[in-house]
């Protein structure tokens, strides 16, 4: 008889693998990357390429330093570092100097991911932390020098182009009336300044739908995050101007990096809660935190908000867990407690009478 495999049950497995899922995420990111390159030209392509190469290369070099064989590194390559590289490039703007994506990429992979133990062990999202690191370290180049879409044909459909500030900073600083651009333009990214991957919401949405169809993410979570951010912004503005500010709803969710963050970064498996119950707690809080931080800091804070909330994920994972099949439900528990209390009371009264 020839050799047979002996393993633990189950002996048949599903078709999904980590590699396949991460490849799906890369495919879903492509439309937004392509639109970024169309809008912002070859410089955008350069930034994306640099950050991808930096991330993938630093992961491989790190593993080589751990004396892993190059063959096994290639065999174990699971596209997670490529996803990090693409996301990192997408949340930089196209005019950043060449060293920014490289340094941010090395930081994201080596410090945030590999030092914590590699794939699945990082406590915060590497791409977001890389961006925040670059934002703090190279503040001058990160918040100024936004590129205008280079191709002349892509002009805003309505309104004027204000140079020097993104629509979101414009809105946060000077109020929604001075945003100077229509919601449709914000949705399509035409004539909108911003980071490479975040301006074309249509492309991001297409990628998100691909992920939902491939069952990589659940549609509920990005939707919950985006909606709570919008509703919270409306609420805050209504209180500030003492009248119902519904006109801030669409601009607030369509500008800035909210779509990119909600679809691709907040839904990152490693740094989001692993039960649905936990996710129902996580995403609304994330939305509220984003809206509040945006209002008080007057800058784009989606990445900061996600980074902050990432740190609470272990807490949510530990204390919020589903009801085990056969465990009493919450109402049953309360009922049992009340009955026990009454029984104790009755016993006490009886005891007193006996005395």
């Amino acid at each position, binding site marked *: *008889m*020839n050799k*047979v*495999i*002996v*393993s*633990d*049950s*189950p*002996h*048949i*497995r*599903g078709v*999904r*693998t*980590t590699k*396949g*899922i991460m490849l799906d995420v890369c495919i879903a990111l492509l439309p937004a990357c392509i639109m970024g390159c169309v809008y912002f030209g070859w410089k955008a392509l350069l930034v994306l390429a640099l950050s991808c190469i930096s991330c993938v290369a630093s992961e491989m070099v790190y593993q080589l330093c751990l004396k892993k064989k190059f063959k096994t590194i290639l065999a*174990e390559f*699971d596209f*997670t570092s490529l996803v990090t590289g693409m996301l990192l490039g997408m949340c930089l703007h196209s005019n950043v100097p060449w060293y920014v994506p490289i340094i941010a990429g090395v930081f994201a992979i080596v410090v945030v991911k590999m030092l914590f*133990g*590699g*794939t*699945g*062990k990082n406590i915060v999202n590497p791409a977001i932390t890389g961006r925040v690191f670059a934002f703090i370290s190279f503040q001058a180049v990160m918040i100024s020098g936004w590129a205008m879409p280079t191709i002349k044909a892509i002009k805003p459909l309505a309104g004027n182009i204000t140079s020097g500030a993104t629509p979101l900073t414009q809105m946060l600083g000077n109020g929604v009336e001075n945003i100077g651009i229509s919601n449709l333009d914000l949705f399509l990214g035409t004539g909108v300044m911003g980071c490479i991957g975040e301006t074309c919401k249509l492309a991001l949405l297409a990628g998100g739908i691909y992920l939902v169809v491939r069952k990589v993410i659940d549609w509920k979570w990005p939707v919950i995050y985006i909606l709570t951010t919008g509703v919270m912004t409306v609420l805050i503005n209504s209180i500030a101007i003492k009248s119902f500010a519904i006109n801030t709803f669409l601009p607030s969710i369509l500008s800035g990096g909210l779509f990119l963050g909600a679809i691709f970064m907040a839904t990152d*498996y*490693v*740094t*989001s*809660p*692993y*039960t*649905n119950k936990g996710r129902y707690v996580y995403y609304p809080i994330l939305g509220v935190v984003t809206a509040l931080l945006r209002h008080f800091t007057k800058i784009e804070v989606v990445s900061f908000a996600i980074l902050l909330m990432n740190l609470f994920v272990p807490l949510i*994972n*530990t204390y919020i*867990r*589903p*009801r*085990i*099949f*056969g*465990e*009493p439900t919450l109402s049953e528990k309360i009922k049992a407690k009340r009955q026990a209390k009454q029984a104790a009371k009755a016993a006490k009264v009886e005891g007193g009478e006996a005395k």
Partner: protein
Amino acid sequence: MKAKKGKLFRRGIHIADKKQYSKMSYIQDAPVPEILSISLAQHIGKPADPIVAVGDLVKQGQLIGQASGFVSANVYSSVSGKVIAIEKRPNPRGQTSDYIVIQNDFEYDALSLEPLTDREPKTIIERIKEAGIVGMGGAGFPTFIKLSPQTPVDTLVINGAECEPYLTCDYRLMIEHTSEVVQGIRLLAKALSVTNIIIGIEANKPDCIELFEQYDDIQVAVLKKAYPMGSEKHLIYCCTGREVPVGKLPADAGCVVQNIATAFAVYEAVEKNKPLYERVLTVSGKCIGNPSNLRVKFGTSFEFLFDYCKLDTTDLTMLICGGPMMGSTLLSSDYYTRKTDSGLLALDSTEVDFKDPSPCIGCGRCASVCPMKLLPMAIDFYTQAGDYEGAKKYGGVLNCIECGSCAYVCPARRSLVQSIGLAKSQLRKK
């Protein structure tokens, strides 16, 4: 009685049932080899004590292993012949136990139990105990203990789900021996003194549902095809809507669950006075040239059965005893049929997808399919760190039914069931 729709349990997984290989083949008697090795530990609990010696002549249906202790079961000889050895051998799970090796004389000189005079609950239970009947779905818990529950019981649930892929032995029994199975079910109900009988059958067996609908005292519950529908707790939930409380037995929810094969064995023991020494077993998989449902005598070697069903070894990758989700892989085919074996599978490389585990990415798929609503990734995490109390507290490991749904969907191919087994055994040691 007209079939009712069963309730749905949340979660679980959907697997291709792959029953087409052996679904249409009639139950046939397997040939009997020259030498049979009958295990004395074919059930949960204490192994039976051998009551024959080397050199003794035994008859078919003669008691050769006496139940020792409360949780134990009698073992009968499945052929007539001479005992040539009593020796220790490993079973597919790796535990060693005593085997009685019998040289078959091909006479089939049969001995049967004494006919019963009445059909009182006590007599039926006594007969079931005497015939050595155990739960034949895989666990092997002695049936007579299940039939004398500590708490009042009002419902008998019969497990006709057969949710494991490939296996068709219960299906064939339901089709070919409907009236016998029904009589067995009625005897079980009588032993429990209940009148409410529900049989749960998955929707992929419409012919079985039709057959059981003709009986007025049996309620058919049509279950959605999902794995693990055959799990006791989920079957009870889907058939009656009751949840078995955490850490309690089905009897605490007023139910007793019995398997189709067990019901058939009860019928044979009570009406035909035949002790349990053979069962129906499915031999299937892509490497089997002739997939079939065989009536096999206990002690027949797996190798003999594989040969009979034309095992093709060119692309053989895995041999499994039981179903592909909960069965155990075989190191070789040098093992012997027992009461609990419902299937023998030989899978090729297209059916088995073996990859090394990679780190957990926290996708939460395992938790989203766990039918017990546990957190397998947390159990794995704490177990790998050696913190078994943590696995119990945060993952709920002791409630696991080890159905393997979590490991089936895991994209990182973590050995979750192995971690769970380790944590459970370590916690039990304390």
